[in-house]
């Protein structure tokens, strides 16, 4: 289904931080939760759900990117689907991997999967992933996370 892959991602420019700094993984995830809360996507309990999910298995996906998100049980904390992008130029130690970009995800059921899969398609392009790690402008980040329209329909 083409619409799954090509629909715009729910990324509010106010949820993009290109020069964040975190002391550790937990701090980075709490910041993602706080930004998602600031744009009205989640309530205050969501960050804890993201941390719980992270403890069960790492959300590191390669290319210097982690995609922290809540658990199925935390979907009641989600008001609307949203992403946030926090860039940590100094890097954050992520279970031994170095993360420069955190894409926090808040979504209800099916929306979650669409977001994960759209993001994965984007990050599979190493050039695009490198550009994302290096992006210093909010518009650049938004542009890079726009799904390709020529994506193969399934």
């Amino acid at each position, binding site marked *: 289904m083409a619409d799954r892959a090509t629909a715009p991602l729910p990324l509010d420019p106010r949820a993009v931080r290109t020069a964040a700094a975190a002391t550790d993984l937990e701090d980075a995830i709490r910041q993602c939760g706080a930004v998602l809360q600031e744009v009205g996507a989640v309530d205050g309990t969501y960050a804890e759900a993201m941390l719980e999910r992270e403890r*069960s298995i790492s959300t590191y996906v390669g290319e210097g990117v982690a995609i922290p998100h809540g658990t199925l049980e935390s979907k009641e904390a989600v008001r609307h689907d949203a992403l946030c992008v926090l860039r940590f130029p100094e890097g954050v130690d992520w279970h031994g991997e170095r993360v420069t970009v955190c894409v926090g995800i808040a979504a209800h059921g099916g929306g979650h*999967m669409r977001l*994960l899969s759209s993001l994965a*398609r984007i990050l599979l392009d190493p050039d695009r992933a490198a550009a994302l790690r290096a992006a210093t402008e909010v518009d650049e980040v938004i542009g890079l996370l726009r799904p390709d329209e020529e994506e193969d329909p399934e």
Partner: protein
Amino acid sequence: MAERRVSVTSEVGLHARPAATFVQTAAKASYDVTIAKAGGTPVSAKSILSVLALDVRQGESIVISAEGEGADALLDELAQIAAAP
């Protein structure tokens, strides 16, 4: 080449935690392990990005394949993860 065909029953499909567990298990093999949607192009089962990009939803079927020592046992384990509710 050994293969297993599995129907994914998890509410989140092969995403999030099930996908991560699946990839972590596949990555233990020293040989190639692939995953495809039924009739689709196989991708590496060791890459979380490839598995997420495949976008396997609840109720969809996948084919996982591998060839090498212990491939049957590994595929059984992967099939179990993919089929878990």
